[in-house]
């Protein structure tokens, strides 16, 4: 999951600016008469699509990769063995995000672009299935060679694998240029996006809540209700959204809210509606379970799943300072070391650098993680919140054309930043680096 969030954060810094630039151009067009997007005044409407998709396709991976990371982290716990091919999974996570920067044009195959562009982006879009498949095979192999325990969390994770394969295959199909020309404006794409956004993101996230809820609250979610919750969601999801692919193949265009009778789309749309309501009922059961278990759930203890990672070594819920000493970690499964004999040396969790002198943390070297300094961290403060409110007011003023508010907000924001960053003796540098 670390690698998933790392890839997502790196991508966020690189691609969120595109959509900022696109929105800024649009705002300038509307308010100050610039000529970026309006064709009749010398603008390029297609530029909007480019800037939007240069952000939005990497964004798909930004929300999917952390969710896939959750599954890679939690499946070993329920299969009672380390993840098969950990290194390959990490490499494919990073590779997926990297290839993800170069596939945006596959959302624009039907906009009349040159054939060379279509071929290149068609090829990269098909290429991205390779790292995705590496991860799928790794999860399947972990389950196959492990001793799986099908708790609710595990049901959500295995359900996710199934949905990922279906959503991946429908994506692979529409990544091929000639197939996309047939499917692009149909409900097939709507089915695909439901599989990738809800199936690949919502399912593992709900699984993650079942997995980490005891760590967060100290109480387990109810397993019986949980299993009912999963099956209703899984059945409702597939009934509703798989049907969309068929509706699409029957020729129903997307972005349509009504159509004449007699086109033959009534039955599949009715099935989709029924499926969507079943799914919604399943999600409702999840919220009921959370509400019920917060009060009445079984007491979890520090490690209810006999899991392998560090967070399970402290009490549930964890103390505000997380760890009293900074643990030294020697392997990927610090709590399983005695059983699986992984690596050389043992993690030390109960001795180490003691956090006994206000807010401190370790600074380490980038590649080896060797501690080389102690950071003094600032105490809790409202200044960042205040700065956020000032910036929000500034931009709200820009949107609503109340310029006084935007000047005041941005000006106060500068002032708050100055106070926030004012040099303070207690958090500043005190020594030169040793050695």
């Amino acid at each position, binding site marked *: 999951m670390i690698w998933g969030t790392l890839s997502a954060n790196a991508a966020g810094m690189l691609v969120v600016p595109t959509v900022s630039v696109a929105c800024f151009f649009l705002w300038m067009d509307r308010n100050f008469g610039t000529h*970026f997007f309006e064709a009749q005044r010398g603008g*390029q409407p297609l530029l909007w699509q480019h800037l939007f998709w240069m952000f939005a396709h990497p964004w798909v991976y930004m929300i999917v990769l952390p969710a896939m990371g959750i599954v890679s982290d939690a499946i070993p716990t329920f299969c009672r063995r380390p993840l098969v091919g950990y290194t390959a999974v990490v490499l494919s996570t990073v590779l997926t995000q990297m290839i993800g920067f170069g596939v945006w044009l596959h959302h624009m195959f039907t906009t009349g672009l040159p054939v060379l562009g279509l071929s290149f982006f068609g090829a990269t879009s098909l290429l991205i299935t390779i790292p995705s498949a590496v991860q799928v095979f790794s999860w399947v192999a972990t389950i196959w060679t492990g001793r799986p325990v099908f708790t609710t969390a595990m049901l959500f994770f295995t359900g996710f694998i199934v949905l990922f394969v279906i959503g991946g295959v429908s994506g692979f199909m529409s990544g091929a240029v000639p197939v996309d020309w047939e499917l692009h404006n149909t409900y097939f794409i709507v089915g695909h996006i439901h599989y990738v956004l809800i199936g690949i993101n919502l399912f593992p996230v709900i699984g993650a809540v079942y997995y980490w809820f005891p760590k967060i609250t100290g109480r387990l979610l109810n397993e019986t209700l949980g299993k009912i919750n999963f099956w209703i969601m899984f059945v409702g999801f597939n009934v509703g959204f798989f049907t969309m692919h068929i509706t699409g193949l029957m020729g129903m265009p997307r972005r349509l809210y009504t159509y004449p009778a007699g086109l033959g789309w009534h039955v599949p749309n009715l099935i989709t509606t029924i499926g969507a309501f079943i799914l919604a009922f399943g999600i409702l059961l999840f919220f009921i379970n959370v509400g019920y278990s917060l009060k009445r759930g079984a007491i979890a203890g520090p490690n209810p799943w006999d899991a392998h990672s560090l967070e399970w070594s402290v009490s549930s819920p964890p103390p505000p300072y997380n760890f009293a000493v900074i643990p030294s970690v020697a392997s990927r499964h610090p709590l399983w070391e005695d059983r699986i004999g992984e690596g050389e040396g043992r993690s030390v969790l109960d001795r180490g650098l003691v956090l006994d002198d206000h807010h401190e943390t370790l600074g380490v070297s980038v590649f080896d993680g060797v501690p*080389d300094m102690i950071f003094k961290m600032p105490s809790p403060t409202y200044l960042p919140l205040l700065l956020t409110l000032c910036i929000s007011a500034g931009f709200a003023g820009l949107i609503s054309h109340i310029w006084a508010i935007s000047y005041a907000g941005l000006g106060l924001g500068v002032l708050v930043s100055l106070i926030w*960053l004012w040099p303070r003796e207690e958090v500043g540098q*005190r*020594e*030169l680096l040793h050695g």
Partner: protein
Amino acid sequence: MVDQTFPNRPPLPVGSIGLHSAGFTGMALLILSEASVFAYLFFAYFYFSVQPHSGAWPPSGPPSFKYSALQAGIMLIGCATAWWANRSAARGARPAVLLALGLSLLLALSFIALQFADWYDKPYSLASDAASSFYFVITGVHLAHVVAGALMIAAVLVWSALGYFGPVRHVPILVTAFYWYFLAVAYLWLFFTLYGTPRLA
């Protein structure tokens, strides 16, 4: 922090130190993200320049070097003064720090003045055509970044005058200098794109 694992290990230095400091890392990430903003602005500009045009691109000819060449020079001299400020701080030479930061601030303010002169020199406006929209929006985005840089220089100038920084602690000056180097590279990039490439066509 008490070290229970290796009691004999020499204690680690305390503080946010030089290139390892949180401020430097934060600025590096900010620059990565802001450099992306400029990259997308230039992408959009080039997207327009490679489209078939009925007339010349830009329609009123390439913008003149009258002020912009001077601006590019100022950005580069600003790099030197910022570097000098950081080096003097590391040596504990406070008068030199104040002089270098004062010069940097002066250069930043003259860059801002020249940018406005460059704007008023133009016969076209933001809303004239696509090329003029690009010219004003891209130089405007860069100008906004320079204004932020001037504010940063003013802040570290005041803080240096108040005696907050010395040979041990001067990361804020380092971070400000780093941001100015980014502004200079961004301006050279802008200079090449807006003022240079139309002349290459």
